[in-house]
């Protein structure tokens, strides 16, 4: 299949991304370059200097809203992807509304309790929508520990499922980028199978 045909196929779909940090920003870039039709991206945060070691932002964007800056950065790529940016803190009540109509949802939070909240909400309130989770990618090295696991038709996990981010084990561009791109790769795979 030629890339132009792949792009045409992917342009019909809408992907939700929950969080615009290290996972969300890099995953969104990969999906926009692949030609996904619409990305629905939500985050409540603003860009800080400490984000620049892994997130798809620039020094002159510090202090700005992540969703707004990410929309701009992705638009500069020049793909036809439409970005719907929501400056909002996600919770069990707004998730089903914000992501209704999405063909796949990407979990891209930093905090583990938020990951848990999103997964429980999608599995219980949005059954049938595939969810791609990132879990365990702090630190550096150990490529062989980063896994991909399909739990069932609707739940997919990328990451080592064991490394917890901390002061001595910070999330860094290489491993966060690997997992973000693995998540994007799973999304593309799901959508390429979809009619």
């Amino acid at each position, binding site marked *: 299949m030629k890339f132009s045909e792949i792009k045409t196929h992917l342009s019909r779909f809408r992907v939700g991304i929950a969080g615009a940090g*290290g*996972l969300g920003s890099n995953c969104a870039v990969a999906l926009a370059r692949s030609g996904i039709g619409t990305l629905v991206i939500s985050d409540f945060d603003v860009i800080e200097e400490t984000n620049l070691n892994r997130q798809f932002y620039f020094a002159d964007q510090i202090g700005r809203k992540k969703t707004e800056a990410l929309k701009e950065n992705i638009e500069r790529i020049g793909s036809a992807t439409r970005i719907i940016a929501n400056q909002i803190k996600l919770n069990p009540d707004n998730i089903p509304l914000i992501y209704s109509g999405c063909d796949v949802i990407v979990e891209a939070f930093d905090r583990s309790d938020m*990951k848990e909240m999103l*997964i*429980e909400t999608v599995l219980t309130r949005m059954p049938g929508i595939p969810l791609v989770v990132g*879990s365990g990618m702090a630190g550096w090295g150990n490529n062989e520990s980063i896994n991909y696991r399909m739990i*069932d038709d609707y739940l997919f996990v990328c990451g*080592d499922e064991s490394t917890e*981010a901390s002061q001595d084990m910070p999330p860094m561009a290489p491993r966060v980028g690997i997992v973000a791109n693995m998540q994007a790769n799973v999304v593309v795979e799901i959508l390429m199978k979809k009619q």
Partner: protein
Amino acid sequence: MKILLNNREEYFDKESLTINELLLLKKLSFRLRIVKINGTLIQKDSYDNTYIKNDDNVQILYLMSGG
């Protein structure tokens, strides 16, 4: 009984186990997680009264901070 735990066969010399018993046995009780049995999400408040039985497909997803 024999179960499938994260796609691996595991044997226990018991007829059934609650989710909390399994987590304790496998020393997995301390982490944030999602548990699915045969494709169904198990709510946290049911970990003591949901039984895992022979041939069940148990999937535990560990949630680590960082992203």
